[in-house]
């Protein structure tokens, strides 16, 4: 009997080896382990054995069945795994083919530059003010210490709408408006981004429309040193941590003293290159201490208050930062340009 059982197990194991699909495996399972299988036959024959042999043979049969069952289970897992592998192989894609194209979308570089400047000053505790582009001569010039016939008005040839209204030539009138509307004459600490206009023909370096960000602080002890410290922070944030600043005398009617502000060249680090015309410095903006005439015109007592103002040219900053050599590119909206930033 034992021989018979062993033979049957060998036979089954051999047969399992050659099976390739689950269906055949199930047929085989019922053939060897099913109700009509030889093992079942053996089990039935057990009753004919002596009480001594019964448990021995019974155990032998069970061991044999378990062995076959294990082999079937192993085979089943092997077949299932092969099947998954086959599926994976079939589904594998060429991952180097291009992805679906989604329109990219970008904020304009001028917007990005303005937001960058805004964020620097928000971090320093400034609030953002806006003003109209159609501005009164009074706010654009007169109250900024630029009376009619002032020679400096030539510096910014203006586009007039009427005798008294024009397209603002700078964001400085927002200074005047902010100081005027502050009825309690409290300290002021603002920045004012916006669009301004000049009567210029558009060329590589001129645009009749452009953007400025004005900075104004008026308080009792706001000093030239405060202006320098503020400029240094802005220069480092905009052009890199290692930047230094340099102030040179200049002239704006609404500030006194007035300065041009240079930033140490970020291309040659001060050694001199074509970008900085071999000076190691790049002129980036104008600034100064608020002229007493402006404070007075806006109802602030210059004996009590003093302050500083800064004027950023947004185009200039963006062009310097990104190496843009023609201001018109900022207004052409060639998507091959706009998509780069």
């Amino acid at each position, binding site marked *: 009997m034992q021989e018979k059982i062993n033979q049957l197990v060998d036979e089954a194991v051999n047969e399992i080896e050659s099976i390739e699909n689950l269906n055949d495996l199930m047929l085989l399972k019922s053939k060897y382990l099913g109700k009509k299988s030889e093992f079942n036959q053996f089990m039935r024959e057990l009753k004919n054995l002596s009480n001594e042999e019964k448990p021995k043979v019974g155990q032998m049969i069970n061991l044999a069945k378990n062995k076959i069952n294990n082999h079937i289970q192993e085979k089943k897992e092997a077949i299932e795994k092969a099947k998954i592998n086959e599926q994976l192989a079939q589904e594998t894609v060429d991952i180097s083919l291009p992805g679906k194209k989604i329109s990219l979308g970008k904020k304009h570089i001028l917007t990005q530059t303005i937001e960058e400047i805004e964020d620097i000053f928000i971090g320093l505790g400034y609030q953002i003010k806006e003003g109209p582009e159609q501005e009164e001569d009074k706010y654009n010039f007169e109250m900024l*210490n630029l009376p009619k016939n002032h020679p400096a008005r030539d510096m910014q040839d203006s586009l007039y*709408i009427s005798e008294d209204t024009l397209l603002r030539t700078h964001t400085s009138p927002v200074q005047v408006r902010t100081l005027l509307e502050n009825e309690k004459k409290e300290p002021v*600490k603002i920045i004012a981004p916006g669009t301004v206009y000049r009567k210029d023909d558009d060329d590589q370096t001129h645009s009749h429309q452009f953007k400025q960000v004005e900075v104004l602080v008026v308080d009792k002890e706001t*000093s030239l040193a405060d202006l320098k410290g503020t400029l240094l922070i802005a220069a480092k944030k905009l052009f890199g941590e290692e930047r230094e600043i*340099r102030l040179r005398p200049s002239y704006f009617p609404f500030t006194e003293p007035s300065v041009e502000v240079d930033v140490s060249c970020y291309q040659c680090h001060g050694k001199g290159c074509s970008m900085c015309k071999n000076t190691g410095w790049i002129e980036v903006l104008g600034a100064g201490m608020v002229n007493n005439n402006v404070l007075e015109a806006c109802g602030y007592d210059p004996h009590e208050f003093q302050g500083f103002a800064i004027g950023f040219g947004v185009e200039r900053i963006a062009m310097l930062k990104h190496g843009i050599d023609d201001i018109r590119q900022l207004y052409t909206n060639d998507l091959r340009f706009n998509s780069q930033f």
Partner: protein
Amino acid sequence: MKISMNWLNDYLTKKIDAQEVEKKFNLMSQEVEGRYSLVDAKGLVIGHVNSCVQHDNADKLKVCQVDVGNEILQIICGAPNVDANQKVIVALPGAVLPGNFKIKKAKIRGVVSNGMICSLDELGVQDFEKKETGIYVLNDSAPIGKDPLQYMGLDDEVIDLDLTANRPDLLSMRGIAYDVKAMFDIDISFDKPKVKRVKEKRELSIFTETEDAPVYYGQIIENVKIKESPYWLKSRLLAAGIRPISNIVDITNYVMLEYSQPLHAFDFNKVNSNKILVRKAKENEKITTLDEVERELLSTDIVITNGVKPIALAGVMGGAETEVSDSTNTILLESAVFDPVSIRKTSKRLALKSEASSRYEKGINHELTKEALDRACELFVELADASIVDEPSFYNQLEVNYQDFELSLDKLNKVTGHTFEIDEVKAILKRLDFDYKEKNAIFNITVPARRLGFESYQDIIEEIVRIYGYDKIGMSLPKTPTEGKLSKKQQFKRNIRNFFSHIGFYETSTYSLTNQFLATKYDVTETSLVKIMNPINTDREYLRHSVIPALTEVLSYNHARKMENIFLYELGKRYTQEAETELISGLMKGDFLYSLWQKQAVEVDFYLLKGIIEKLFIDLKISDFDFVVPENPIPNLHPGISANVLIKGKHIGWIGKLHPEEEKELNVKNVFVFEFELEKIYSAYNENVKQYEPINKYPSVSRDIAVVVDKLIPAKDLYETVKNISNQSLIAIDIFDVYQGEHLDSQLKSIAMSFKFENKEKTLSNDEVDLMVKRILNALEEKHNAKLRQ
């Protein structure tokens, strides 16, 4: 202002270097535009042409033996005017001429040439001679073997300053010297002009009828010999960028450069009068100016007259009739002060800008008006053999009135944020030549007359700080305690930009000024345009009412450059006389999403645009919005594919497809645009903190139905009807198919809808859901005659 270093050094007790001057001006005074040698040449020497014979093998060449001091050089010269016994400029072998032109020993047609005899043109010097005829022939006294540039005064370096409007004092060499004194802390000295006047009476009376010409000196100068000016004078004028003409003109220009006091010379015999009357021009009075143009004058112009008619346009240009010429013998020399504003207006109106007018515009130091005249007289004697007859006739309505400013050390330190010592301030004021009195650290400072335009102690602070050095001021930050933040609206605008940029739109930056046609093209407001009085051109004459025309221009530009998928937006403005209305405008064309190799694409259509706008509103937590058929067609949009957009029933803007005619004009198909008023969206924008709604733990049940209705009934009406049944369990309605065509009457359409039901208290039973669907169907049938599609 161009500074001649030779000239400047004449005033200084210690010579200074041009490079140092450039550096100091940049950091302490005015921006330097350039620094350069007046003549960029090395290796030149004065030679004497001992002999000059024809070259054997060349018709046009001469062989010269030239004495250059220590040797005789054989030099081949091709100039037609070269001759024996001339003093000439020789470029020795090894010399470098402008343009990095190196002179070498050479053989020319078989004959050795040891250098070159130069023309001034070859040295880069223009306008020194009246007519350039070839090589330059020096005067007889030129020292052989010496540097010709030094001999002629051309060995100069020039510093070109870019002057700001507040420093007219730097329009004179004396003013420059004062500034150099302050910057370098060195001494300067000026010679007082010495004039020998012939004591003979000349009848000349000078009057004025206008306050705009407060000072006027007229000097008669006789026996003037017109000739070329000497080398030194020509060289200095060249360095200053002024063309030498003749001694009379050159002297007036030289003195103007020295004192910033313009002078004008009349041919006195042509004045035809002993009476000079300065007055305002009469309306439509005429004068022919030096440039031979007849000018029509206004009553704001100042004229110099001979009592009868204008002989000069004061401060701007002389008259042609009294112009000095080669035959002039007696001149009337004018040294005067005119009103800056008046001169500026006249010069601007007539587009006549000169060295003189630009100085008058900025203001003249009247303290020097007489001295400048004397200086010119001195030079007329020296350089034109003239006799100065009698004292000048004049009137002077100006009093010397110095400006005083009080500045305390405290104030200086408070404004600068720096601690100045009292002695430091005193030393700087001394360097600046500002007189002061000091008591208890309070300075009373008198500004000299040469420094015009001081308004307050702030100008004094500027002077002190620039001489002290901006780099020595420390750094700090304002102590004003304020909160830095974007306003709610500014944050809202950033959100809008973030939304469109993130979803795939490029932000554009376009011009607000446009032409009349484009300014109103997509306008729905019917308000009047804002027009520029003095436009740059007609394409920039009006402020726009809509951003869309600019966006379609950007579309055309990019489309012409083979870009197919174009998604644009801009936050611009609509400008009217009364207001500036912020707009959100956009344009879409092409595929929003695509894959070429998979042949898949999501092309823009009305519903993509609508979906994006819906998402925008939902992102902004705006719920009560609606798209409605416009009562009147929106200009330039497809009347059947456009909608007005409402929030809380209020019109906020529109969306739609461009009109086919418009697309044809642009040569682009399927363009969708939108324009909203930002403020109207903003006012509905809700940034309240959203309260959490618990997620339903009972499952939802979905049911789909299809109904057949008249094809003109908008889907929205069916929606509304279903919503109005007001069943709290109905939580979502969606349309998943719209069908017209086969198997359906041509007047009908089939709409398939999907409903989602759920209840917060229990799982809904099939029967309950069936009942709700039945009620929906009943309502649809009752209201819209909708039949369930089987």
